[in-house]
């Protein structure tokens, strides 16, 4: 968990965007869902969309995917754009007998490629298992493997850690970060979780029908618009990661076993090096307490 993504420099402005959205507007019936939204996705950068329910996150993702046409605005796609999409949740009717390998083959892949993708996401041993028997984390990894089989230069991940326990979430975000480095692909993530995702993100776009604010996690978390949206108690915290987690969510204490410190008054950039920055929303704190 060193090398927090937040320390990355902003991408070179001259880099060609994989997809560029300008002035996007979309209404359903007469209800506006998106207004004047700009979004720029670059290779090698992780952009996370956050926002309350009904903020238009899913609509924006569908426009990026080309599943929805905006009412106004411009969508410019790079000619090389190849999207790997990981949907929010997968419900497979229990009457459909389907093995993991078969599920992956829908992405037009042969067995060797499927196995390689499963190995990359760490669930190669599940290749012949029925999809209906997978745990939440295994399911998300399988979906990620299918997205990888498209050989994408843009990964669109809708709530990638949904239904995964906290330790699993951290591992999954780490995997996503590694994939970004390996493939140098752009990544667009949607998230409700304000805590772990911040550490894994280069840029945060806070959406509430329009873009409230955007920037690095540090910039966004002190932005008045962000605080207004997620509550005043939301504050940046830093903590020294003095322990490791083993596979069973237990805490393995390192040499320094002092308790983690939460400094809710600290509003600046986190220390570089062994600390990483994130945001704790009071509403989400209960779920994340175990890790703090």
């Amino acid at each position: 968990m060193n090398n927090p993504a937040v320390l990355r420099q902003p991408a070179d402005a001259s880099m060609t965007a994989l997809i560029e959205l300008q002035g996007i507007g979309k209404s359903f019936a007469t209800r506006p869902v998106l207004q004047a939204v700009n979004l720029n996705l670059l290779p090698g950068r992780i952009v996370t969309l956050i926002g309350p329910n009904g903020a238009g996150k899913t609509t924006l993702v569908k426009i990026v995917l080309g599943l929805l046409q905006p009412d106004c605005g411009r969508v410019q796609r790079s000619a090389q754009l190849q999207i790997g999409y990981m949907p929010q949740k997968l419900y497979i009717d229990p009457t459909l007998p389907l093995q993991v390998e078969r599920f992956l083959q829908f992405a037009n892949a042969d067995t060797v490629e499927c196995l390689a993708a499963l190995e990359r996401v760490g669930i190669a041993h599940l290749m012949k298992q029925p999809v209906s028997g997978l745990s939440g984390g295994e399911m998300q990894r399988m979906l990620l493997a299918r997205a990888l089989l498209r050989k994408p230069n843009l990964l669109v991940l809708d709530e990638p850690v949904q239904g995964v326990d906290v330790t699993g979430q951290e591992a999954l975000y780490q995997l996503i970060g590694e994939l970004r480095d390996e493939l140098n692909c752009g990544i667009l993530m949607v998230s409700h979780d304000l805590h772990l995702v911040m550490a894994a993100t280069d840029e945060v776009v806070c959406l509430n029908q329009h873009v409230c604010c955007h920037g690095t996690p540090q910039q966004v978390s002190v932005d008045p618009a962000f605080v207004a949206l997620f509550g005043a108690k939301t504050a940046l915290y830093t903590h020294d990661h003095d322990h490791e987690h083993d596979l069973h969510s237990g805490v393995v204490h390192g040499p320094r076993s002092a308790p983690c410190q939460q400094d809710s008054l600290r509003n600046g950039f986190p220390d570089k090096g062994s600390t990483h920055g994130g945001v704790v929303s009071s509403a989400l704190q209960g779920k994340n307490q175990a890790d703090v």
Partner: protein
Amino acid sequence: MYDFLYLALLAGLGVAIVAGPMGSLVVWQRMAYFGETLAHGALLGIALGMWLAWSSSLAVIVVCLLIAALLITFESQQMLATDTVLGILSHSSLALGLIALTLIPGVRTDMEALLFGDILTVTVAEVTLVWLMAGGVLAALWRLWPMLLSITVHEDLARVEGVPVERLKIVLKLLLALVVAISMKVVGVLLITALLIIPAATARHFAKTPEQMASLASVVAMLAVCAGLAASWWVNTPVGPSIVVSASVFFVVVFLGRGRQV
């Protein structure tokens, strides 16, 4: 000597083979109610055929395709829930069909044969039509199978991966309409859905892959046709219901057997 029996068997087996994969898709995509609606519409088709002096198979196909087209139009409007639209179409066409049949001058229709099937009176021409259409539907399903499965699993994901989802859904509905049209003579309008669903549900227990389920469902449907005809021959029961009851018996046996294993 027993020509009519062989013809009946041939017609039944033709329908049973295609009922396996089509029935599996109906179960996976939860299209049972849609199949029911098409089946009820088939009755209207028969009436239309008599009015216009068309062959009944042709008229049934035309009306089924019309209902499929109506449903697709209503669905794209998104004003009503799909099952509401289906309910309207289904029962209106059934009622309309029953009325139309009684209004035709000079014809006394055998309503029971229409509602519950009349496989023992199939002609050589009808059997040929059953096999031609069953073959056509099977060929189409074979070709489209991977894409049909892909949209069954996740429509948006399939769409992003370049599968023409909307077109496939229309094609699937049209294929189902064809299957309903040829099943009508075998089990009648009220039992067509049963012939699609029960074998597929029975096969689910043994299948590890979608293909296994589809082909096993065909086998179960074929066994049900044979058993139904046999029952009808020996015990003198109506054929259509006997076929459906046989399929149900297979399902119950498998269901209970499964319970014992667990």
